[in-house]
């Protein structure tokens, strides 16, 4: 039996934007086992419910993650709205959907850039982030922030998007779609990209279920799971198909995410066409009492919010299960048996968000 050694990977590593540590049990250049450990950026945001009232918590939950910040705020608000039995105006739900899909676009473009950077394709990284910049500008125009949007509130949204703004966004997205086809074509067709992604990091359908993977990880293993199909916000009015792939490898994950980029653009178009002209928020009186959970689809996969309220202005408990947390067991599965050189790439294919995971 060859000699085994343990190589520590992270928490500081050029490929990792955020700190996660892995103990890699190696046999020569082959990874036998990978043991992830987290705890480097824990901020205790869940326990802040005892110090910040339930309205202020909207702004705290937004800061759980810098990429899906909008969806965290939206998930928390819908959980509290469920407890308080608040019917959010339809326009607010459409606006939330549009912003959520814009978040997905910007997250997936960020991921594509990081992936390109991980396999050393610097120009492709720049191109992906160039396109992402336009989405951030659209966020700044519509919400006032580029990363933290602060437009959600319990009972609706704070800012409206007038019709001319929505139509200008659609025309920007139409132009962007052309550029996107060009850039994503490279991911799909390029020989160098394929040589790094095809057949690397296989997560079979069975393993994906057993390890409880979520989001694009799950869909790239051929399983049709998408929380948007449960019809929260305005998704029940929109027409879309779940994008899956049967290949189960890193290339399939890339394919699924690229498919979702175009799907998001299409969903924004549909939402803009169908958006009703109603109020954007309803006044909310009193304090929440009871408990609720919501499941919704973030760019990285399914997120889960559990909120328990006791009738005072402070909540009893808030629990967030973020997609990266659910994908870590799948990560340790795909790392088994891979080459050492593929480890950074495979960590990226789960689209890790460690700040989310640790909250």
């Amino acid at each position: 039996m060859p000699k085994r050694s343990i190589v520590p990977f992270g928490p500081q590593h050029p490929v990792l934007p955020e700190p996660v540590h892995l103990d890699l049990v190696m046999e020569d250049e082959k990874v036998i086992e990978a043991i992830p450990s987290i705890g480097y950026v824990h901020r205790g945001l869940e326990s802040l419910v005892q110090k910040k009232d339930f309205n202020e918590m909207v702004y705290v939950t937004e800061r759980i993650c810098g990429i899906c910040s909008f969806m965290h705020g939206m998930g928390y608000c819908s959980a509290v709205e469920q407890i308080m039995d608040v019917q959010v105006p339809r326009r607010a739900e459409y606006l939330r959907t549009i912003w959520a899909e814009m978040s997905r676009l910007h997250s997936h473009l960020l991921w594509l850039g990081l992936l390109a950077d991980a396999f050393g394709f610097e120009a492709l990284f720049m191109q992906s982030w160039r396109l992402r910049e336009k989405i951030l500008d659209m966020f700044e125009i519509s919400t006032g922030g580029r990363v933290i949007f602060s437009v959600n509130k319990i009972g609706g949204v704070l800012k409206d998007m007038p019709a001319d703004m929505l139509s200008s966004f659609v025309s920007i997205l139409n132009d962007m779609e052309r550029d996107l086809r060009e850039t994503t074509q490279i991911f799909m067709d390029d020989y160098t990209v394929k040589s790094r992604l095809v057949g690397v990091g296989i997560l079979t359908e069975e393993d994906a279920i057993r390890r409880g993977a979520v989001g694009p990880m799950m869909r790239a293993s051929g399983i049709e799971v998408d929380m948007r199909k449960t019809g929260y916000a305005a998704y029940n009015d929109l027409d879309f198909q779940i994008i899956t792939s049967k290949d189960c490898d890193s290339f399939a994950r890339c394919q699924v995410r690229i498919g979702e980029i175009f799907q998001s653009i299409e969903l924004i178009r549909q939402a803009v066409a169908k958006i009703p002209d109603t109020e954007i928020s309803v006044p909310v009186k009193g304090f929440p009492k009871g408990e609720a959970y919501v499941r919704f689809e973030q760019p990285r996969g399914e997120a889960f919010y559990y909120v328990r309220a006791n009738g005072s202005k402070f909540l009893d408990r808030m629990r967030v299960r973020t997609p990266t947390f659910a994908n870590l067991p799948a990560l340790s599965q795909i790392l088994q048996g891979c080459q050492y050189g593929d480890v950074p790439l495979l960590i990226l294919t789960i689209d890790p968000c460690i700040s989310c995971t640790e909250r």
Partner: protein
Amino acid sequence: MPQFLGFAKTVMKNLFSKPVTTSYPAEPKVYPERSRGHVEINIADCIMCGMCMRSCPPGAIEVKRNENTWSINRFDCVQCGYCVEKCPKKCLSIVPGYQTPDSKKYVDTVTKPVVEQPAAAKPAAAPAAKPAATAKSADAETKAVAEAAKPVAAETKPAAEAAPKAAE
């Protein structure tokens, strides 16, 4: 061959197109209208209720009713806009322009100008001018009246004066 053509097209495009980035700071950044840069107060309309102070998630705002001051630690402020939403008189607004970095944190303080109640006017006509806000000296009174006459100056001037005090 088609691959080469695509490559040549990209090269030509990149050689002759304008850069995507702007040449900041030579070309200043134009913020959109809704950009959440910093919180501003129209102190003349403020009723010193303290709603902004109580709602501020990071606790950056302090309202001193007895001193008639509204102060904000801009380094703690997270530009969430919750104070603007909560303000009952809508005298707070969030406007473009970010806080510039500094070597030490300071607090911006705005003093509410004391408006002298005209003897002829009805007491209800000027609810903002409270009897508690009587000036300590005749000198201060005249200054306050002068400040009230030009609210724009009143907003900035006391802030500059009060900043060193807060630092102490």
